[in-house]
């Protein structure tokens, strides 16, 4: 068996794959946070809860209506996105003129309510969500065994991230969005419906979180607590990357996921801590974040 630094190559690659999977979710979620923050100036604490919400909708669709994974991949982001837009219309839109801290506090409360509701009805234990048959099994790549579904998650998350990036950087809608980030009053004066743009943006962010949730359902167990555990790590990712750049958020997400996977191989006790330690180091050396313009 081949060894690198006294570690079997298989174990190393296996953990790197796990890291890459985690990184995919970090990337998708921090991307959504960055998109929302860019325009709304709100840190969406409910992002983890929306991710959990997405996974749960997928699970409930399967259990109660027999709707499988592939239709859920479309339906779940729609439902979560519409829910997000309703929240934005009814509540968040009243908070824009206030200190951004209030947005954080409101979404924190929202996260508690969503999580609380699911905990009340489904308890804290996880519910398994089967891998869709077409992606069951695995492929032997010669140097390692790759479960098909995990490969799909990495590919899908890359598609989602690149797609969102293209949407924001290369389309007309994206250019409105970027302009409104710079100067909402001026953009409104040009006849763009900025309040609608804000609603759509929050909806997009929420849909991204929901999509990440349904992608995650077969990998992790569907549990009411899956979001809150994740969101804090994603916050650390966002601090490291800085929210100024969409691409920065994506790259940092994958990088920190990989770093976490590698730590699991060499020093497992610290694998929970490593993202936070990297955050602390980045704060000491480059307070604005790796890709950040300081906000």
């Amino acid at each position, binding site marked *: 068996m081949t060894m690198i630094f006294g570690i079997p190559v298989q174990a190393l690659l296996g953990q790197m794959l796990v890291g890459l999977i985690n990184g995919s979710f970090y990337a998708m979620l921090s991307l959504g946070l960055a998109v929302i923050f860019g325009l709304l100036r709100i840190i969406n604490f409910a992002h983890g809860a929306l991710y959990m919400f997405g996974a749960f909708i997928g699970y409930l669709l399967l259990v109660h209506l027999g709707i499988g994974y592939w239709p859920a991949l479309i339906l779940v982001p729609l439902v979560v996105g519409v829910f997000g837009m309703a929240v934005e219309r009814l509540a968040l839109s009243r*908070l824009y003129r206030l200190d951004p801290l209030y947005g954080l506090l409101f979404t924190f409360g929202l996260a508690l309510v969503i999580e609380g*509701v699911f905990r009340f009805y489904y308890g804290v234990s996880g519910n398994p969500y089967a891998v869709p048959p077409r992606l069951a099994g695995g492929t032997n790549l010669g140097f390692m065994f790759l479960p098909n579904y995990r490969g799909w998650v990495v590919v899908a998350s890359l598609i989602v991230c690149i797609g969102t990036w293209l949407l924001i950087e290369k389309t007309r809608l994206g250019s409105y969005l970027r302009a409104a980030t710079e100067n909402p009053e001026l953009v409104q004066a040009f006849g763009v419906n900025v309040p609608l743009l804000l609603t759509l943006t929050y909806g997009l962010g929420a849909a991204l979180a929901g999509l990440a949730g349904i992608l995650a359902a077969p990998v992790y167990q569907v549990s009411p607590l899956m979001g809150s555990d994740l969101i804090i790590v994603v916050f650390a990712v966002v601090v490291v990357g800085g929210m100024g750049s969409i691409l920065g958020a994506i790259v940092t997400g994958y990088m920190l996921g990989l770093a976490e996977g590698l730590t699991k191989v060499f020093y497992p006790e610290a694998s929970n801590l490593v993202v936070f330690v990297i955050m602390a180091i980045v*704060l000491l050396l480059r307070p604005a974040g790796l890709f950040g313009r300081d906000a």
Partner: protein
Amino acid sequence: MSEATLHEQRTAASVRLERVLIALAILALVAAPFFVYPIFLMKMLCFALFACAFNLLLGYTGLLSFGHATFYGAAAYFCAYAVKAWGWPPEAGILLGTAGAAVLGLVMGFLAIRRQGIYFSMITLALAQMFYFFCVQAPFTEGEDGIQGVPRGTLFGIVDLNVTLNMYFFVLAVFLLGVFAVWRIVNSPFGMILRSIRENENRAISLGYSVGRYKLAAFVMSAALAGLAGATKAIVFQFATLTDVTWQMSGEVILMTLLGGIGTMVGPVVGAGLVVGLENTLATSGFPVTIATGLIFMICVLVFRRGIVGEIYARFLAPAGGEGGRAQ
């Protein structure tokens, strides 16, 4: 947090009224254990001090820390460990807990003040989560079980804290001392500078204050006082567990302060009383506490940003002209 400014310009009459009310409140607290279950009161007082310490940072410096559970919980661990494993007397354990929380505050504050606003909150949250994972793994915290069966001991070798009333009056003394410390800090020249940072950080910088140092000092003081509350709690309940270092605990202290009134002296105390009371009621009703907490958060932020005490100040105690003027 400019909404808090309103009540600060008050009339001589309102100051006099406030003094009378505070004297009455202290009298009520002295009489309370003869009417209400003392353990419940002690829990309330510990949380009230915790919320006051937190408010020193949020209400008077404008920094929203999402990681204050670290100081509360860590101090509880330090105190419980010193008292149980080393046989330290309770007062020494509490001092150690407070000092430990201050040191942690220095480290966390030093990192967190490198970014402003919303990033500050995220960094404190992330560092607190890191400390939580540390507590899960570190051997001295005894993992999921926590440190159980901490002896209450005798205070200064004289007062037996196993007697409930003795314990109560000790907690009350700690609480009053802590709140007095917060009041003293807030109403000192140092506190004025903190407020100026809250109102306009750039202007404070241009006036020549090294804002970073003031923020860090406020952070450490707030952490130490939160630690005082946590260490006292460990003696009262005779245990220290992981619950005290979770992010939910950080959220709870924010809720207490927000509900009572950010930037008021009395607000966090009222908020703590209400939240602890509510949790006690809900614990027997079967309605999940998380949902109630979340709903109160959302309602407070949407319609009630000054909090209960803040609203009362704004309605009844504000000088003419300041009345009804929403600060936003």
